[in-house]
């Protein structure tokens, strides 16, 4: 029971952290690193579940694209 509760709690914190990353990325990051998203807003909510699920990878790619730009796409 305790392990299950612990796992569920970790999952909840993981998704909450993903929510914060999603908010920051969709408001600040996406326009900086993805030219095709500039001026396009309707598709952004669709990205929220994906960012919540793989936010460590999102942060990694965000940092890489900020540093190296199009060359690392």
């Amino acid at each position, binding site marked *: *029971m305790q*392990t299950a509760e612990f796992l569920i709690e970790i999952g909840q914190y993981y998704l909450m952290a993903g929510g914060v990353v999603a908010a920051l990325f969709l408001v600040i990051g996406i326009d900086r*690193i993805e030219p*095709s*998203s500039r001026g*396009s807003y309707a*598709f952004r909510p669709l990205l929220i579940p*994906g960012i919540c699920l793989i936010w460590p*990878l999102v942060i990694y*790619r965000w940092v890489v694209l900020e540093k190296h730009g199009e060359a690392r796409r």
Partner: protein
Amino acid sequence: MSVQYTPVIWNRNKIFYDAVLLIAVALYLYIFIRVGPMFEDVTKPIDGAILRMRAFGSCAFLMLTVILCIGPLARLDRRFLPLLYNRRHFGVMTAGIAAVHANYVLTWYFNFSPTDRYVALLSSNTNYGQLLGFPFEALGIAALIVLFVLAATSHDFWLSFLGAPIWKALHMSIYAAYAFVVLHVALGALQGPADPIFTSVVAASVVLVCGLHFATGRMEARRERGEQTAKASLQEAGWVVAGELEEIDDDCAKVVTLTEDERVAIFKYDGKLSAITNACAHQNGPLGEGKVLWGCITCPWHGYQYNLADGRAPEPFTEKISTYRLKLIGSTVLLDPNPQPPGTYVEPVEIGEAA
């Protein structure tokens, strides 16, 4: 240059694809839930919720099976290519159907527990050390998480943002999801009262997925061997490997140095490849850096133009340059280093599927 993202790209073909898919899913669920009970053992009636749970679960399993068959089928026979066309909508729908199945499980088996139902789901059976009675629910959860990740990252944005290698590696986890689902079914539903139809369908699905992948793998290995042989015999005849097709951008050239004085520009344009000398007949300008327009290359130095197929300047001009023969083996471009006399027509190589 870029195109702005939209939430979902739909066109006539995609709407048709999705409509057929929806109708097929609805029909399957209807038959399973409405017609299925007519054939059940009256001494062991199944609750409505369990029936719906099985209907959605088996539907997700079959959809995943079909999704995994589409790739190899399209490689074995081009007539299956239309199925590949909108596979991502198929995948998203599969994740949705699997989620409905999971929701039925949660609301049927764990709804009235004083414990949180997610905690109850994870803690009700923890016999991970044994095969019979294995907590197969965990395998279903693992598969569902993978399906969610794949569905949530199916938008074009993700391919561009993550880059093709990462995106592709991520989406290859569909095979892990399928393995989880097969084990989930094998250690779960198949452990119940023997149902020959259900067992046969599961076994046939697994054999079909594995068999198609094996057949495609063999076909591609055979094709690769054939390509290697063709490449080796051409190289023996003096042809040189000029590079891979993907190295050449559309309407651009790759310049290959044969000797210090001899460079060849290989152009990719209109789905074709042509090779000409890199030196303009006027003042040896670098033609490989020129612009392709209407099948002609314009020298960046003084604007002299040549047809890429025959190396002749358009009339009324009379300049001619050497052309070269090319061959495309798989995605490798091979070049005959012997120049054709200036102005000789050389049939452009059609890129076709390899592009």
